[in-house]
């Protein structure tokens, strides 16, 4: 009845693991208690969990991302602490626990921090930048969210029941096979990836359709804001790369659970096929994470330099070129696997070519700033910090792209430093900049700038302290994922790296402090215009926070920087005398239910609870069938209701002084 779920599943093997489990359980209980005490369950369910509004789904994605950022960061600082002290001794973490931590750190940061963060930003911003009222498939959007959350839930529950994988975030066989890893850890990893991966594929499909078919009338492709372009490219990569992840995770699952021989050591298995399949997804994934951040930087640079984006067309072409090239370089992740020198050379050259469009982008951002009136808002600081730091990461990337050099660096901390050098400035700084930039659009008040600058400085300084020593250590020959070592030369570097992690800790604290301070003082930083930064693109044409339908009247677009043009012509704040009724999708519990089923399917396969697996799959199927027979998933917003909302907005605009110059009603 309970499969392999026994009392041994509880983490009694290490006091640190036990502590982690207790904290997890306590946090869940505490959250539930607080919601109950506040009497907010009903509100939470009706207004948020069952919502199909793209703005609310976006907010929930980002909240998930922030929670997972904390979890992933705790893993990171635990590893840094272990390596700082583990010279000629075992440190405070048993080896197997250390392995779980580096696996969960990578898995969480890629799948459950970065992916939800960028998907959240895309959700909030893209429909508004397009002049659309929602995404093309609002219900599917909700399903994507809850499948992602289900995957995160599987990683979360592995803290309490059983262990997580010890095979690293890419789970290479044969180590991740059933022979070397007989426990539930790898299965947790597989099912977290499978369940959330389906959600990401659907997000990709959703946003390709939204961008290609739901643009405001008149908006040509070459007039879309750059964030929309990078989203389009990221969505295409999601839709085309994530199926590969589904395949490779499923095949490994079949090896483990059914006893097949795709990647095993015996009976004709081919473990090198795993490396190929996972990196066919994995390399595009890097660009899935980075391109939306490039979009954010483009928007931020233009707005805070008070200039039109330099080289709009070249940025678009560079984005698409990166997207295409991202599918041609996967083999550089395993140069040492022993392909022929010619094959390695071709993939090495292809890898270096990617630096060309990326360089084009760097110059475009720099030239946008040249002679601009730069405002050093935290979002802009992140952008400048990104440009400088990312170039360093790019240079080490070109180094690693040379196969003979890669043979030296492979599996060392040089590689660890390199990819953190790409992903922290290239992805996370972008998401932070986006949060600073678009927060008022979502909540109606600006974030505190002092704490924003704290977030920036701590993350930037902490990053350099934590990862520059790792470059040096890699050159000294330190391999990655070491839980103890005997080289006294390494320890000073590792102590500096630990200090860097502590600075980042202050940065993580500042993220939440900034929210706290800003919410407390929200009345001082109200954004009544909906356009706090004198923005250029359509999302600033809506009120802050935007009405459920975003635009009461869909705007006509005929240029890049559509909102800027509208302001110049004095047409930005026109209010008609009459409104048409608007049809919006109605909230539904189906998304939450499908997510719950996804979680249960994963949990059941991990623990061999076959009855539960069948039950959950049948339930998911039933929900899908019922939902797909539904012809009335909409609700109507009447012209009277729209008039009420818009009159309030008009009164708000009139109350702001000096706005009439931008075409607001006097």
């Amino acid at each position, binding site marked *: 009845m309970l499969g392999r779920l026994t009392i041994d599943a509880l983490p009694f093997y290490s006091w640190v693991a036990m502590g982690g489990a207790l904290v997890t359980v306590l946090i869940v209980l505490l959250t539930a208690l607080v919601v109950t005490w506040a009497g907010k369950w009903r509100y939470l369910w009706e207004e948020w969990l069952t919502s199909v509004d793209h703005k609310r789904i976006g907010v929930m994605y980002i909240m998930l991302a922030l929670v997972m950022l904390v979890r992933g960061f705790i893993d990171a600082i635990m590893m840094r602490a272990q390596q700082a002290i583990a010279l000629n001794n075992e440190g405070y973490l048993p080896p197997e626990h250390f392995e779980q931590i580096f696996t969960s750190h990578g898995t969480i940061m890629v799948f459950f921090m970065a992916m939800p963060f960028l998907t959240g930003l895309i959700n909030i911003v893209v429909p508004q930048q397009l002049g659309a009222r929602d995404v093309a498939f609002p219900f599917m959007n909700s399903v994507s969210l809850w499948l992602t959350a289900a995957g995160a839930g599987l990683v979360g529950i592995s803290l309490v029941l059983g262990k997580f994988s010890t095979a690293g975030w890419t789970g290479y066989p044969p180590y991740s096979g059933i022979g070397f890893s007989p426990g539930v850890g790898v299965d947790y990893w597989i099912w977290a990836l499978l369940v959330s991966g389906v959600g990401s594929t659907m997000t990709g499909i959703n946003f390709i359709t939204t961008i290609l078919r739901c643009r405001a009338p008149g908006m040509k492709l070459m007039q879309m804001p750059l964030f929309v372009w990078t989203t389009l490219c990221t969505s295409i990569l999601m839709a085309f790369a994530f199926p590969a992840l589904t395949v490779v995770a499923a095949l490994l699952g079949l090896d483990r659970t059914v006893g097949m021989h795709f990647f095993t050591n015996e009976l004709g298995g081919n473990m090198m096929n795993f490396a190929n399949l996972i990196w066919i997804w994995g390399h595009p994934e890097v660009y899935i994470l980075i391109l939306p951040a490039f979009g954010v930087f483009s928007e931020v640079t233009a707005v805070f330099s008070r200039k039109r984006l330099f080289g709009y067309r070249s940025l678009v072409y560079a984005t698409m070129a990166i997207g295409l090239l991202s599918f041609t370089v996967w083999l550089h992740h395993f140069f040492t696997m022993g392909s022929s020198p010619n094959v390695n050379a071709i993939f090495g050259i292809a890898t270096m070519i990617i630096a060309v469009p990326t360089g084009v982008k760097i110059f475009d951002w720099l030239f946008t700033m040249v002679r601009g009136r730069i405002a050093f808002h935290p979002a802009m600081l992140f952008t400048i910090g990104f440009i400088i730091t990312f170039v360093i990461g790019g240079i080490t990337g070109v180094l690693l792209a040379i196969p003979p050099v890669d043979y030296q660096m492979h599996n060392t901390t040089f590689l660890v430093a390199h990819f953190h050098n790409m992903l922290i400035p290239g992805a996370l700084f972008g998401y932070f900049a986006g949060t600073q930039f678009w927060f008022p659009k979502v909540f109606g008040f600006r974030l505190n700038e002092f704490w924003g600058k704290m977030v920036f400085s701590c993350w930037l300084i902490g990053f350099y302290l934590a990862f520059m020593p790792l470059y040096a250590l890699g050159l000294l020959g330190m391999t990655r994922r070491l839980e103890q070592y005997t080289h006294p030369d390494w320890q000073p570097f590792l102590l500096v790296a630990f200090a860097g992690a502590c600075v980042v800790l202050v940065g993580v604290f500042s993220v939440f402090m900034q929210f706290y301070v800003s919410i407390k003082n929200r009345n001082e930083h109200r954004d009544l215009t909906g356009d706090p930064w004198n923005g250029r693109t359509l999302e600033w044409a809506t009120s802050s926070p935007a009405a459920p339908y975003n635009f009461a009247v869909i705007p006509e677009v005929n240029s890049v920087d559509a909102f800027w043009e509208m302001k110049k012509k004095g047409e930005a704040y026109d209010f008609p005398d009459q409104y048409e009724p608007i049809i919006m999708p109605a909230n539904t519990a189906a998304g939450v239910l499908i997510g719950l089923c996804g979680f249960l399917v994963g949990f059941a396969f991990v623990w061999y609870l076959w009855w539960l697996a069948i039950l959950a799959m049948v339930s998911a199927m039933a929900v899908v069938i019922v939902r797909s027979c539904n*012809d009335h998933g909409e609700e109507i917003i009447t012209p009277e209701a729209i008039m009420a909302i818009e009159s309030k907005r008009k009164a708000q605009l009139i109350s702001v002084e000096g706005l009439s110059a931008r075409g607001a009603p006097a």
Partner: protein
Amino acid sequence: MSHNRLQQVMAEHLEECLDNREFGFWLYLMTDAIIFALLFATYVSMFRNTANGPEPINLFDLKHVSLETACLLISSVTFGFAWLAAMNKKLPTVMLWLIITLVFGVSFVSLEIAEFAEMIREGAGPQASGYLSSFFTLVATHGIHVSIGMLGILMMVLQVFMKGLTPQVCSRLFRLGLFWHFLDIVWIGIFSVVYLPVFI
């Protein structure tokens, strides 16, 4: 606001939604095609990994496979007739052709299950070698897709019966048709890559 205007707005909204869904469904099919492409690639790369176990030449029965193929191809034609009838608004004919399609679909899946059972009985199950793992995974993934498609056809029969040929129902029927024909194309791939080379 006049009631007519609301009706008009709703009709426009519905048309736009259904158009989007058709476009999105094509995208979904592309993602599914990638899954199959990778399974095909895995199959081809594992073709010689039989580990001294059963060889493909001794496993497949050309007559059996031809029969399977015929069932699936005919079911695609009958689905096409159902769609033509839907275009002409002939409700009973739609249901008749859908049910015929379902019969052929069930025959296909039963034949496939019989083939699998026979192979497993002969000791050529998916655990026997890397080659057989990839064979079973590729062909069964297609079979599971066909089974889900049959569930869809069943739902369509019920919907056509209960709701008539409304724009929503027709749009669903169209998308299910895309799915069904897509599986046909995948099967032609399976027939030519998995079965045919063994007999040539």
